[in-house]
C-alpha cells in the first residue's frame, strides 16, 4: 500500500507541473451557485462568486460605507431626484469590450427589461438612466430613494459585457463576461467553478492568485475535513460547533463578523384562514412566546455563543440598531401571565422550519423552552421551496425563517412588514408602520431615517408579526498561511490583498 502510494504520488507530481498549484486559491462553498448571470441569479452563494468575477459600480467597506469601484465618484442632486456618477476610465471587460457610460446604460436597461430579470424590484425607483458623455451617467429616480446606492453596490450594480449579453441572451450565465479581477474559465455543476486572473484588470497588483477555484461542498464537516487536509485554502460558513476546533488547530485560522441578516419566526397574522388562531390573532400570545424563549441559551447551545441574539430586523453592530431597546432576558412567569391574560392556559402552535439539522436543532430547543411556559410548538419540517409556497399562499401558522440581509436597512424590513410589501407573508398591516418605513426610504438624512426605524421597531416589537431571534455570524476558516482576508458583514469574500505565504 505504502509503495503504491509513493509511486502514485511520484507519478502525479511528474504529470502535473508543480507551479500551477502554487497560485491557486481553493474556496469551499456551502452550496452550488445557481446561474452565473447577475440579472437572473438569486442565491447568496452566487454573490460570493460574482464578487471576484464582476465589478460593481460601487462597493462597500467592512463598515458598510460606500467606496468607489467602477464609479469613481457620485453626487445626488439637491432634491434627491438625480444621481450623477463619474466612471473609471481605461477599464475593459473580459472580452475586450470597453467599459463606458453606454455600457452602464445597457446594463441597467437589461436589469430592468429582461423578462427573466430578478433585479426589477431593486431598480424599481429608477425612471431613466442616460449617458452624459463617455464616462458620466445620470440616474433619474421616480421618487427620492435612499436605497439606490446600496442596490448598485450589489448585483444590480454589477456590469456585464454588453457585447457578450447581446450575443448570448439568456445563456449568458454559461459563459459570463464581466470586468472583475478574475474571469470565468470553467464550471462543472455541483463540482467547481474556476476563475482565472484577468490580465487587463485595472488594478492587477492587489490580487495574488492566478486561479480561484470555488468548490461547493454542502456537508459542513466534510468541508472542514477538506480544509484540514489542505485540499481547500479557505471555506465559508464554518459550522459554529467547529469554531473551537479551528481555533485550536495551529494550521488553521478563523475569521468572523456578525452578518447583516436575521433569523426569526414569521407569524401568519392576516394571511387567510390559518391566521385565525390565538397565536395569529392575539399579540399577547406572541409576546408570551417571545418571553418564553431564552435567546442566549439558543445562542450557546446551537451556535456555541458565536452568533448575536436579536429582537430587531437589524443586528446589534448595525448603526440602525435601536440600542435603547436591547434583548430582554427570558421571563417564563411573564409569559404565563400574558397567556392567562389572553385567556388561554395552554396553546399549541404549528411552526414550519427548513428541513436541515441546524434549523431543526434550533426548533427543538425552542420547543423545549416554550413548553415550560405552556406553549406547545408542533414542528413541521419542510423543504425550503415548499415552505415558501405555503407561506405566500397563507397555508401556515408560523414559520421559522430568516433573511440574508442587505446593506441598506430598508432591505431588511420594508418588504416584510409594510401592507403591500412583496414578501409580507404575515400580512401584517399598520398604516403607522407603513408611513414610518416609507419616510425612512425616501429620506437621505441619516438622523431622520434612524428616528423612523426606531419608531417602527417599537410598534413591531409590540405587535410581533415577526419574532426576531438572532443574527448569524459569518464564519470563515482559512489555512493559516493565507493572509490578508478581511471579514465583511455582507458575507462576501473579497480577495484584494489576500495571499498565501
Amino acid at each position, binding site marked *: 500500500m505504502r509503495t503504491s502510494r509513493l509511486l502514485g504520488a511520484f507519478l502525479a507530481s511528474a504529470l502535473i507541473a508543480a507551479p500551477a498549484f502554487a497560485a491557486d486559491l481553493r474556496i469551499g462553498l456551502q452550496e452550488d451557485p445557481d*446561474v452565473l448571470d447577475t440579472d437572473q441569479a438569486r442565491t447568496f452563494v452566487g454573490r460570493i462568486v460574482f464578487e471576484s468575477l464582476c465589478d460593481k459600480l460601487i462597493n462597500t467597506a467592512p463598515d458598510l460605507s460606500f467606496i468607489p469601484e467602477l464609479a469613481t465618484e457620485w453626487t445626488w442632486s439637491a432634491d434627491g431626484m438625480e444621481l450623477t456618477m463619474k466612471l473609471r476610465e481605461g477599464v475593459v471587460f473580459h472580452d475586450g469590450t470597453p467599459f463606458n457610460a453606454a455600457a452602464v446604460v445597457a446594463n441597467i436597461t437589461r436589469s430592468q427589461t429582461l423578462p427573466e430579470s*430578478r433585479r426589477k424590484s431593486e431598480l424599481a425607483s429608477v425612471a431613466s438612466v442616460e449617458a452624459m458623455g463617455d464616462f458620466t451617467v445620470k440616474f433619474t429616480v421616480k421618487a427620492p430613494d435612499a436605497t439606490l446606492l446600496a442596490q448598485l453596490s450589489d448585483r444590480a450594480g454589477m456590469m456585464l459585457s454588453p457585447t457578450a449579453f447581446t450575443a448570448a441572451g439568456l445563456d449568458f450565465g454559461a459563459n459570463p463576461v464581466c470586468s472583475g479581477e478574475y474571469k470565468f474559465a470553467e464550471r462543472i455543476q455541483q463540482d467547481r467553478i474556476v476563475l482565472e486572473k484577468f490580465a487587463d484588470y485595472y488594478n492587477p497588483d492587489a490580487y495574488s492568485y492566478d486561479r480561484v477555484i470555488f*468548490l461547493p461542498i454542502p*456537508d459542513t464537516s*466534510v468541508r472542514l475535513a477538506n480544509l484540514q487536509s489542505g485540499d481547500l485554502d479557505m471555506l465559508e460558513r464554518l459550522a459554529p460547533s467547529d469554531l473551537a476546533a479551528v481555533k485550536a488547530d495551529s494550521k488553521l485560522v478563523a475569521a468572523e463578523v456578525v452578518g447583516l441578516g436575521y433569523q426569526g419566526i414569521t407569524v401568519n397574522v392576516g394571511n387567510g384562514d390559518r391566521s385565525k388562531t390565538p397565536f395569529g390573532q392575539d399579540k399577547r400570545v406572541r409576546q408570551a412566546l417571545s418571553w418564553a424563549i431564552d435567546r442566549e441559551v439558543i445562542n450557546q447551545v446551537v451556535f456555541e455563543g458565536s452568533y448575536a441574539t436579536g429582537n430587531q430586523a437589524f443586528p446589534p453592530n448595525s448603526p440602525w440598531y435601536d440600542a435603547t431597546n436591547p434583548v430582554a432576558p427570558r421571563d417564563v412567569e411573564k409569559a404565563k401571565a400574558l397567556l392567562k391574560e389572553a385567556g388561554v392556559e395552554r396553546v399549541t402552535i404549528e411552526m414550519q422550519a427548513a428541513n436541515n439539522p441546524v434549523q431543526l436543532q434550533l426548533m427543538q430547543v425552542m420547543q423545549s423552552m416554550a413548553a415550560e411556559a405552556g406553549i406547545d410548538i408542533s414542528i413541521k419540517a419542510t423543504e*425550503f421551496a415548499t415552505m415558501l409556497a405555503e407561506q405566500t399562499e397563507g397555508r401556515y401558522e408560523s414559520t421559522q425563517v430568516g433573511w440574508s440581509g442587505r446593506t441598506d436597512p430598508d432591505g431588511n424590513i420594508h418588504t416584510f412588514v409594510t401592507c403591500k410589501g*412583496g414578501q409580507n407573508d404575515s400580512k401584517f398591516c399598520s398604516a403607522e408602520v407603513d408611513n414610518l418605513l416609507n419616510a425612512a426610504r425616501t429620506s437621505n438624512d441619516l438622523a431622520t431615517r434612524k428616528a423612523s426605524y426606531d419608531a417602527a421597531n417599537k410598534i413591531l416589537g409590540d405587535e410581533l408579526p415577526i419574532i426576531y431571534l438572532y443574527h448569524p455570524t459569518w464564519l470563515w476558516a482559512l489555512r493559516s498561511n493565507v493572509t490578508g482576508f478581511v471579514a465583511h458583514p455582507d458575507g462576501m469574500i473579497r480577495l484584494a490583498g489576500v495571499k498565501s505565504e
Partner: protein
Amino acid sequence: MGGAITLHVSGRKMLGFILRRILISIPTLLIVSIFVFSLQKLLPGDPVLAMAGEDRNPEILEYLREKYRLNDPIPMQYLYWLGGVLQGDLGVSLRTNQPVLELIGEKLPVTIQLAVMSMIIAFLVGVPMGILSAVRKGTWLDYVANFVALSGLSIPNFWLGIMLILLVSVNLGWLPASGYESPWVDPWRSFQTMIMPAFVLGTSLAATLMRHTRSSMLGVLQSDYIRTARAKGLVENRVIMRHAFRNAVLPVVTLSALLFGELLAGAVLTEQIFTIPGFGKLIVDAVFNRDYAVVQGVVLCTAVGFIGMNLIADVLYVVLNPRMREAL
C-alpha cells in the same frame, strides 16, 4: 454436442427473441414516461417560486409560468414534454439554465467511473471469497466469509461512508474526504477521491456476488462432470479453475449486468455523502431544489438504462447458456 449446428439454427431464433424483448420494452418505456412526468406534478411546492428565490416578484412568477407552459392543461404539458424527449430535448435546468441532456452527459461518466470501480472491487473481493468458501464449505473460513458477506449486505452504506470519512480522512488524513477529479486530468487524484466511495458502494455488491458465486459454485462442485474430473485424478486447483469456475461465473456475469442498474441507484446516497458530482447527487439536489426538468430527465435516463441493461442481461443469459439456447 453439435454446437456449430445448434448455433446456426438458433441464430434466427435468437434475433426473434431479441426483437420480442425490444417490443415488450416499448409499452414499459411509455409507462415509465408517464410516471416520470407525473413526478413533477407529484412533488409539492411551486417550481416557479423556487426559481424566483429570495426576491419574489409576482410579475416574474407569472412570466415564468407562461414560459414553462405551467398554465396549460396537464395532458398537453405531457405531450409537449414527450415530444421534446423524442427529439432528444429534455428541457433545461430551472436552476442553472443548463440543458438537462448536457448535464446528464456531464454527470453520467462520473457515476459510471464510480460504478465501474465498485464493480471491480466487488469482483476482486466477492468472487474469490465465494469460490473459497464453497471449496472450503463448512470450515471456519466459510463461516467467516459468510459473516463478512452478510455484514456487507446489512451495513447501511451511508453510515459506512460517514465512518470512513471520520476514520480515514479526518483522523488519519490518508484520503480526501470529498471531491472529484476527472481521470483524464489527474488519474492519481481521481483514484484517491474515488476509492473510498467505490469501496462503500461496492460492499453490498461484493456481498451479493460472494453469495451467488458460492451457491452456484456449490452446485457445480456437486455435479457429475466435476466428480468425473476428480475421479480422473486431476489436481484439485485445476478442477476448480478450469471446470468449476467457468461454469460458476456464468450466472454471475448475467447477474452483474442487472446489478449495474442497482449500482446506479446505490450511488444516490454515496455521492451525496462524498460530494461527488454524479448522477445520484444530481437527482437528490434536483428533488430538493424542485428542479423538475432535471428530476424527470435523470429518472427517465436511469429507467431507460435499467431496461437496456435488463435486455442485455437476458440476451447474455441465453447466449452464454447452451440449454437456454435450445429452449428458445
